[in-house]
């Protein structure tokens, strides 16, 4: 099997985590593409924090509605059975535990399950709805590349970037592995195809628990 493009590997693997009927909020950027890789019999309900549930695919060119956009401001659509509401209701849904899963990008994730994904030091331009999502969603999945462009680990002992929330990450999916955050800390669940446990450890600054059996991501 030829090596898959790293970002595609990530979103394909995250897509396996989603179940029919779940209310899901996907962050801007990489997580957006998760919905393109759901199995045909998996029907999730997408929540868009600017005020609706039942988000559908982007409209065809020429069929955009200026009053219907996603949380990134891009043209969007609503499926039958969807509903619009105001921002207070939108975040009541998010903070109140009515979103089953959120999939978000990350800048750093640390051993305590802390997430930093909204700012780099010196460039603080706003957290949007990320802090509410990470605290409120029942399950938080971070989808990010394992290392920065210059090769440093984004899975660290302690986040150095401004935090989005503390101890809320449940699952981390990277181009190298899948890590679950347990009450005992991060546990390596799977490695990517053609990636060894030693490869993961070499690329990871955080201390990981390695079970006797580590699976292989099948996407």
């Amino acid at each position, binding site marked *: 099997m030829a090596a898959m493009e790293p970002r595609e590997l990530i979103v394909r693997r995250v897509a396996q985590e989603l179940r029919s009927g779940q209310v899901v909020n996907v962050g801007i950027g990489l997580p957006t593409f998760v919905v393109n890789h759901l199995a045909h019999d998996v029907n999730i309900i997408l929540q868009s924090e600017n005020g*609706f549930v039942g988000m559908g695919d982007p409209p065809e060119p020429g069929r955009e509605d200026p009053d219907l956009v996603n949380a990134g*401001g891009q043209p969007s659509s609503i499926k039958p059975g969807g509903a619009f509401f*105001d921002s*207070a209701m939108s975040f009541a849904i998010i903070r109140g535990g009515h979103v089953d899963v959120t999939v978000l990008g990350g800048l750093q994730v640390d051993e305590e399950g802390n997430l930093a994904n909204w700012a780099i030091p010196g460039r603080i331009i706003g*957290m*949007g709805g990320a802090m509410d999502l990470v605290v*409120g969603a029942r399950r938080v999945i971070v989808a990010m590349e394992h290392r920065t462009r210059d090769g440093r680990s984004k899975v660290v002992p302690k986040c150095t970037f401004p935090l989005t*929330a*503390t101890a809320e990450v449940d699952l981390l999916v990277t181009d190298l592995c899948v890590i679950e955050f347990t009450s005992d800390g991060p546990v390596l669940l799977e490695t990517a195809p053609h990636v060894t446990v030693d490869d993961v450890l070499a690329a990871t600054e955080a201390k990981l628990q390695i079970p006797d059996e580590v699976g292989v991501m099948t996407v």
Partner: protein
Amino acid sequence: MPKLRTLDQALESLTDGMTLMIGGFLAVGSPEALVDEVIRRGVRDLTLIVNDTAMPDRGYGRLFANGQIIKLICCYMGMNPTAITQKDEGRLEVELCPQGSLAERIRAGGAGLGGILTPTGVGTVAEEGKLKMELDGRTYLLERPLRADMALLRAHVADRAGNLTYRKSARNFNPLMATAAGYVVAEASEVRDVGGIDPDHVMTPGIFVDAVVGVS
């Protein structure tokens, strides 16, 4: 009490130094005509309470390039480099607030609450300066209410009694801001006679709205 006004009439009480709430999310559901009028009037030293700073050439985002804003309360500035530059150069005071907390603070301002306790932001920079409380083993931040001198809204349909509906994702912060300002004006795509909106479909009751402006 007919509430239909011209643009000029609707904002005649706008003065320097006021605090404005303006509806919209990345300029969607933003009252473009009312923002035009704020620009035409050239009032300065405004404090702006908005979800985000929109774009330099769209919605309330245009007020930054026009140098009318000295203070900003919002959750996201990422699409407006002009506002970011003003912040970085110290010309714009900025208070960032998580989006859900911002929505609740505006709602609390309109609902007569002294504040709300949220788990959002605990352990982050969002907790700076805020009271923390632990209740039943969970930690919360006390977020205080927000109110404004004026709220500028974008409605879909209005009636002459000020009842409003919004359309699709253009609803966002508009109904919240309608409750939390001393003077509330809405521009609407369509203005109907009193009673032209089914009372079960009204999204903002007319008692909150002081003036309605029809826009095409």
